[in-house]
């Protein structure tokens, strides 16, 4: 039995929340910077999906939710560029990618 059209946004919102949570958990449990970046990407994807779902629900005819997706994509691209640069720099400076060792601001 096909899903009624009105319920699609709700399902999408739930998926968005799930994606966000998966990303957050990945960010918290993994000490390696590379996996933390992957987690961040997942969180951004969740947020973007949330925009699309909210846009569908709003039905404002402006497709503003879908437009926000484009913005999120741009932010994600910038974040990936910055994160990878940091990753390379960290590997060269500290010799490891373990963020738990980065405590010089505290010590």
């Amino acid at each position: 039995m096909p899903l009624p059209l009105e319920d699609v946004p709700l399902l999408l919102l739930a998926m968005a929340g799930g994606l966000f949570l998966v990303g957050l958990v990945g960010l918290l449990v993994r000490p390696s910077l590379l996996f933390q970046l992957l987690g961040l990407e997942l969180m951004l994807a969740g947020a973007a999906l949330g925009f699309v779902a909210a846009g569908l629900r709003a039905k404002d005819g402006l497709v503003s939710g879908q437009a926000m997706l484009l913005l999120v994509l741009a932010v994600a691209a910038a974040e990936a560029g910055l994160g990878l640069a940091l990753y390379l720099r960290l590997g060269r400076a500290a010799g490891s990618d373990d963020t738990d060792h980065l405590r010089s601001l505290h010590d």
Partner: protein
Amino acid sequence: MTDASWWDLVLSRSPAVLLLLVPLPALGAFVLLGLGPTRLPRPLVRLIGLAGGVLPLVFLAPLAFATLAEGWRPLVPIFTLEVGPSLVDLALRLDPLSAIVALVVSSVGAAVLSYSLDYVAKAGMAELRRFLALMNLFLAAMLAMVLAGDSITLFLGWEMMGLCSFFLIASRVTSQRAVAAGRKAFLMTRVADAALLAALLLLFLEAGSVRLDRLMQAGLAAPETRRMVIASLLLVGAAGKSAQFPFHSWLPAAMTGPTPVSALLHSATMVASGAFLLALFAPVLVAVPPVLWATALLGIGTSLLGAIQAIAESDVKRLLAWSSVSQIGFMLLAIGVGAPEAAVAHFVIHALFKSLLFLAAGDMARAAGGSTAIASLAGMRWRRPLAFFTFAAGAASLAGLPLLSAGFWSKEAVMGATFNAPHAGELFWLAGLVSALLTAAYAIRPVLAGLRPLPAVGSTSASAPPAVGPLTEVPLVLLAGLSLAAGLLVSPIMRALGAEVAHLPPLPHVLTVAAPLAGFALAVLLLSRPRVAQGLVAFRKRTRRHSVDALLVVAIARPFGRLVRRLSRHGAAVEDPVGRIVPGVLAALRDAFTVPLSGDPIDRGVMALVAPVAPAAQAASRRHDGQLRHQTGALALGLLLLMAAGVLAVWA
């Protein structure tokens, strides 16, 4: 028109907006070269420097033509601000006076910048950029000052010129003499600038507006004593910038700067801007006869002083500097006898021949291996014919060679106005005659030196001077042509400003014409005697010891230094009395209240209440362990709590 913004002018397509374009190329060149972070190739740097120098003339020429020929008087508001009852309304304007002076400034600026590209051809990249940027900034500042329609733009341009002057004099930063000369120029003009600022502010208080035309009306309507104060302050401001007595000593010292700087700033334009300022405020000055009389006296006195110093000078650049002091004295004399139009005419002609003299002297100095001594000009007639003959044309104009040179016509206009002055005109005229005679005597000295045959020793290396290109030759030839032919401009200039050339009675006229010739003869006769030359050297040494500079040092600089040392910690009984007040008061308070109460039980009770705070702070500090994951987790937890609070708030 006053309330319209410049944008309204753009919309109404008035050509007046083009006036804003005049100082812009020079300012743009400064921004590109001086502040631009990018690396530029050398030809582009030179091109930008040249464009910034030449484009203002291109933009200004048609506007000035419309003003001078058609009587067009544009006024471009830039910015308007109402402060209570007063109006701060910045504007640029063009009238015959500013059109003539701006034309001269931009033409001399274009010629000097073109010349300076050759002059600094061997300089390093950073030095080249700084030099061209500052020259262009100066040009923009001077044009803004001349075209200003309000006192704020005027003063801003005036101060920027002084700043550029300091930087450019001291542009060889490794030379202590250059830096000291720059500092001297800056400090001396700064003292006078304070007087100018005071005068402009007093006028503003009278008028409630910064527009020059309103200031002029307010200055005329002011009570007599206040008008006198304003006029005297204006005179002091002009004397400082124009190196008139007692500020005259900074100008010869400023000759340690590069030659193009001397040609543009310290002879033709900036130094003479004191005369422009007084011509601008001439209506106010004329209403105060004592100050007007003081202006004439100051002018002729400084003119004689400069001429005598120039005769004894052994360095060609310093000779030209003293002659600038002397010629600007002539301009002040003309203003003082109530003929600012003649002063402006002399300003124009002087700018043309004096910049030419400096440029030609710089070229000859380059051929002489950088030496600017008059003795090293020997043989220039053959080694550097173009520079020598253009220099001779400039010197003829400076001396006022009858009929052939432009300087003759403008000096005659000044002398005519002086002779016809209502009070003591004949006396001033006689002093002017002596000054003109001395002028001719010192003007011919470098020319005679150039005609002397080359000394045989070392002539082989000196006989092959480095070649110069059209960037040097074209300005020299153009300026030389103008120095001879611009005499035709004197009466049109005066007519454009609303005055006619005053004529002398026959006998004084003949004497005025004969003075330069007598000066030439005197110089040729006397300078060929070695005893006279030795006497001049001794005279120079004596005047250096008893100069006004020495007086200023003894009377002002040393006591001031002692006062400063006394107030600061060096060699004083009390260390910094002012700085010790606050710590002393605090220490007294502590001794009076805190110390007696510190053993008190109430005090201890209060401290017990505070005691747990420190361990709590430490515990909280431990949670801040700086780990990325812990902080992210705390962030997520906080977000969750906020969301829960939000949901609860919606349900409740």
